[in-house]
């Protein structure tokens, strides 16, 4: 009976599709995706295109904006490198060694994902301010973290940490013991085994994690703006400059910077997809 009804109501429905609901689910998905994501995002590009190339370059690449890009991208790159090293050590220790509280510490690694960025921002600022617990320790050595570009990197390291640990951990877990045993029995030293067997196996995951941390750091706002000090040309990040331009009613300026950042995040997304494909290929090749 229901078959007859389907045929009456939707004569175009394909008979061999046994599961219902594709049309409804797909319609809902596309409608929400278009209304919430695609149409608003296209507004940025449409506004930029309407600006004309010369004006776009003039407001999107002026010296103050260039300095902000340099800090956002340079800082995120440095933070990703630090996270690559520190995240690898953390993942290694959490996967390979046993010590009291290991599971709780493992769970805490996700804190930067769960803690709202504004809270992270004021907490880090308080720690590294000259009067803070860590800032006070560093001051006698003449090291200033809060309200300098160093502070920007500190915030980006915080926000990017889980990406590296969480992408490297599963690969380290799945690594076959026999590979290491074989290397050992063939006379390799521990260091040689690590360098020539383990590192190549986890390299795709490590690179992916660093790329994800980099992408997050470039666009990060909440955790950075409190600790940065936001001096134009020195410690002002690109997302903050978008906000500043908006507050000055300079919509064109904000849109141009946003367009540059969007294009860059799309390129990064593509790169991360390629990296993941490399990872998958490496996985099947093994």
């Amino acid at each position, binding site marked *: 009976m229901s078959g007859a009804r389907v045929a009456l109501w939707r004569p175009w429905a394909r008979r061999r599709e046994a599961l*219902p609901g594709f049309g409804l689910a797909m319609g809902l998905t596309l409608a929400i995706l278009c209304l919430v994501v695609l149409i608003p995002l296209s507004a940025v590009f449409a506004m930029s295109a309407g600006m004309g190339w010369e004006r776009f370059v003039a407001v999107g690449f002026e010296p103050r904006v260039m300095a902000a890009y340099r800090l956002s991208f340079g800082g995120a790159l440095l933070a990703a490198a630090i996270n690559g090293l520190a995240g690898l050590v953390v993942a290694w220790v959490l996967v390979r060694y*046993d010590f009291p509280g290991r599971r709780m510490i493992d769970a805490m690694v996700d*804190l930067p994902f*769960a*803690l709202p960025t504004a809270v992270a921002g004021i*907490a880090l600022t308080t*720690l590294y301010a000259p009067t803070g617990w860590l800032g006070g320790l560093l001051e006698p050595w003449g090291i200033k973290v809060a309200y300098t570009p160093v502070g920007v990197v500190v915030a980006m390291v915080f926000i990017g940490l889980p990406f590296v640990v969480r992408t490297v951990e599963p690969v380290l877990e799945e690594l076959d013991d026999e590979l290491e045993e074989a290397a050992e029995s063939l006379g390799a030293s521990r260091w040689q085994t690590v360098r020539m067997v383990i590192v190549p196996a986890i390299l795709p995951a490590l690179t992916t994690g660093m790329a994800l941390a980099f992408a997050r750091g470039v666009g990060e706002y*909440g955790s950075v703006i409190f600790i940065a000090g936001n001096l134009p040309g020195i410690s002002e990040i690109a997302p903050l400059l*978008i906000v500043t331009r908006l507050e000055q009613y300079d919509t064109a300026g904000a849109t141009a910077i946003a367009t540059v950042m969007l294009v860059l995040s799309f390129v990064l997304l593509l790169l991360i997809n390629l990296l993941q494909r490399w990872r998958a290929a490496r996985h099947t090749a093994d």
Partner: protein
Amino acid sequence: MPPHRRPVTEPRWMRVTLCLLALGFLTLFLALPLAAVLGQALARGVEPFAAALVTPDTMAAIRLTLLTAAIAVPLNLVFGLAAAWAIAKFRFPLRGLLVTLIDLPFSVSPVVSGLIYVLMFGLQGWLGPTLAAHGIKIIFAVPGIVLATIFVTLPFVARELIPLMEAQGREEEEAAIVLGAGGWRTFLLVTLPNIKWGLLYGVLLCNARAMGEFGAVSVVSGHIRGMTTTIPLHVEILYNEYDFVGAFAVASLLALLALVTLAAKTFLEWVHRDELAAHTR
């Protein structure tokens, strides 16, 4: 699950050194910031801490945050279920592209996520003049805050459910349909019980982000005290007014939310590991 004993490992001094390095790094970047929030909130004792939490502006911020989450989370739940049903149970052209598009909000800077709605609905935006003529306010008002929150949280439920439902296949649903169950009945009685833990996991993360979002909401909010400030924005206002006890007291609410989310998430990962997709990839 404790790590299984490996036959080959590093010398003892190396293991100890690496452990200390990792723990030192995590203390510096995880434990100390958390301790700083609680320490600053309680710096002058319990009373100023409690007083900061019950001011009218704080209560208004809490109400707005709860309202925003109450709209954004169910909407994302519906979106996530619909997207996962279409993507995981069916094959169609450009399926991979659709998955990438759903993940898009994660790779957009929060500030840009707010800006796009200003460009759509702001006074200088596409629809702004039309809306203003009809007296509808979206930017610098609650609807803008809700929209920006929906944008930044959109992928959470979908990205949790898609791999999970894909791994479960469609045999069970097909069997139910063949046996005469309707589409909704099949979904409620067959699909939903299979994905409930994954769904809860996605909702949990979605909710944490919805309540804690700062950048995107900051751009569209207009920062009108007691009117368009969510909890994170209220923290910023108090901090910029040098009311550090107040700022950290309100921030400790959000830190508590983060800790509860982490605990619930970890619990789900331990107890229902097999029914979650996050760790099978």
